[in-house]
C-alpha cells in the first residue's frame, strides 16, 4: 500500500504542477488582452510673441493655484516662438511682464489656459501694443492620411491684410492682422508659399511632408514682410499597416497547445517509471511475507 500511495501522491503533484503551468500560460494570455494605451496625462504648450510694436517681454507659466512659475521665458521679442513643452494636463495661467520686471510684480497681461492630455496649445501675445491680448490658439496633432496640414497666422501690422497662396493655389484671401486660419490639408511637396499685402509681398520655398503640421507666420521686418515656417508636429509620412513582424519565436514562451505534448510526455514517463517501480516492489513483497510468522 505504501509504495502505491507514494506513487499516487507523486503523480498527483506532477499533474497539479502541470496544471499550474497551463494556468500560468492562460494568465499570460489574459494579461496581454488589455491593449488600450495607458493614459498619458501630458499636453503641450508653447508661447509666442506676435505683437509687432510691443517690446520684449518675460513670459511665465504657472500651474493653476501655484504661485511659483513652472516655466519662465525671458526676453521674448516679436516673432519669437518657443518649442512645445510637455506639461501635465490641467489648468494653467500664462502671464506676461515687461522684460526684466520682478517676478512678483503685477503682470501686464495674463490668461488662463486649460491643457488637455494629448492636445497642444499656442499662447501668443497678438495685436498692436495698444491693444495687445493673450490668445490661446488650439494646435492640431493629427493629419489626414498622406497629407500635410498648414495654418497661417497673420502677424504683420505693416500689411494688415494679406492673401496667401501655396503652389499658386489660394490658401486664404484677405486675412486680417492678428488673425489665424484653421488648419488646411495640403498635398505633400515642396511648395512656393507667397504672402501678398497691399504694397509688399514675400515668397518662401517650404517643404510640406505628409504627416507633418506647419504654422506659417506672416511677420513684419523693417520695410518688408517675412515668413516663418514652424514645424508644429511631425509623424511618419506613411503609417505602416499594423504592427511589424519582428520575431521568429526562438525564445517564445509556447502557448498552451504546444505545452500539451511535453506535459503528456512528462506524465506518461512518470506513469511508466512509477508503474515499473511499483512492479519491482510488488515482486519483492512475497519474499518479505515469507519470513512473516503466521
Amino acid at each position, binding site marked *: 500500500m505504501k509504495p502505491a500511495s507514494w506513487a499516487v501522491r507523486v503523480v498527483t503533484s506532477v499533474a497539479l504542477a502541470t496544471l499550474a503551468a497551463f494556468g500560468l500560460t492562460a494568465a499570460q494570455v489574459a494579461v496581454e488582452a488589455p491593449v488600450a494605451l495607458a493614459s498619458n496625462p501630458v499636453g503641450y504648450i508653447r508661447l509666442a510673441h506676435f505683437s509687432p510694436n510691443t517690446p520684449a517681454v518675460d513670459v511665465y507659466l504657472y500651474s493653476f493655484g501655484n504661485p511659483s512659475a513652472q516655466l519662465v521665458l525671458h526676453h521674448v521679442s516679436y516673432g*519669437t516662438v518657443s518649442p512645445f513643452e510637455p506639461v501635465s494636463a490641467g489648468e494653467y495661467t500664462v502671464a506676461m511682464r515687461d522684460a526684466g520686471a520682478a517676478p512678483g510684480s503685477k503682470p501686464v497681461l495674463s490668461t488662463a489656459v486649460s491643457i488637455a492630455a494629448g492636445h497642444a496649445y499656442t499662447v501668443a501675445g497678438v495685436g498692436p501694443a495698444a491693444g495687445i491680448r493673450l490668445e490661446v490658439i488650439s494646435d492640431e496633432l493629427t493629419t489626414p492620411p498622406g497629407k500635410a496640414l498648414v495654418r497661417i497666422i497673420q502677424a504683420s501690422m505693416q500689411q494688415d491684410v494679406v492673401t496667401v497662396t501655396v503652389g499658386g493655389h489660394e490658401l486664404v484671401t484677405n486675412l486680417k492682422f492678428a488673425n489665424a486660419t484653421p488648419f488646411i490639408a495640403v498635398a505633400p511637396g515642396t511648395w512656393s508659399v507667397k504672402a501678398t499685402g497691399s504694397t509688399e509681398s514675400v515668397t518662401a520655398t517650404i517643404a510640406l511632408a505628409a504627416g507633418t503640421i506647419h504654422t506659417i507666420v506672416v511677420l513684419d521686418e523693417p520695410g518688408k514682410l517675412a515668413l516663418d515656417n514652424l514645424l508644429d508636429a511631425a509623424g511618419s509620412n506613411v503609417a505602416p499597416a499594423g504592427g511589424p513582424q519582428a520575431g521568429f519565436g526562438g525564445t517564445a514562451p509556447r502557448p498552451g497547445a504546444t505545452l500539451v505534448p511535453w506535459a503528456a510526455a512528462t506524465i506518461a514517463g512518470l506513469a511508466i517509471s512509477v508503474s515499473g517501480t511499483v512492479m*519491482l516492489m510488488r515482486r519483492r513483497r512475497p519474499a518479505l511475507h515469507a519470513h512473516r510468522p503466521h
Partner: protein
Amino acid sequence: MRADTAAGRADARHVSPLRVIRRPWAVAAAVAGVLVVTLGGAGLSWASGTGRSAMPVGRPPVTGTPRSHWAAVSAPTAPAQVVPLPTGMVIPAIGVRTKLIQLGLAASGTLQVPADVGVAGWYTGSPRPGGTGSAVIVGHIDSVNGPGVFFRLRELKPGDLVYVQRTDGKMAVFKVTLVQTFLKSRFPTAAVYGPVPNAQLRLITCGGTFDVATGSYLSNVVVFAVLQ
C-alpha cells in the same frame, strides 16, 4: 513485530541484484520512464521560455547633448533645421548596442524589418531621431533559435535612457516614458506613427504569445521615449 522488522531488514539486505535483473522489462520501464520525465521536463522548461541569456554591454562613453529648452527659440527667418541621420543606438539598461540600418515599407505596406535579427533599423518614413516628431526604430525580439537585438526591450522602464548616435557624431538622448504591449490586432497606429510636437522616439519589437500556426507573435512591445 520485532521479528518481522528484523526479518524485513535482513531480507532487504539480501535482495539479490539477480532478482531485479530477472525482470528486465521492469528495469527498462523504470529507466525509460525517468528518461521521458527528464526530456518532458526539459521540453516544458524550454517551451516555457526559461533559461535565457543576455548580451551584456557597458555604458556608452557619451553623455547627452544639452537640451534645447525655452532659451532655444526659432528665429523668424531661420532655414528649416536638417537633423543628422541616425547611425547607431545604445540602451545601457538592457545591454543593447547596435548600428541602425534604414528601413522602408514592405510590399504589403507593413513596416520593413531588419534581415539581421542582431541589428535595429530606423524607419525612413518617420522623423529623424532628435528632430521634431516621433522617430520609429524597430528590431527583432528573436530569431528561430535565439535572442534578437530587442530581446529585452520589454524590460525597459520609465526613466531608462536611450542613446541614438548620429552622423554628426552627437548623441540624441531619450528618456523612456512608457513601455507597453499591444495585440497586433489593436496596434496603436496613431500613437506610434502619428504627429507629435516635440522630439520623441518609438522602439518596437514583438512580444506576447507566439502563434505557432502563423509563425508570428500576437503582440508588439512598444517603448515610448522623449528627448532629454
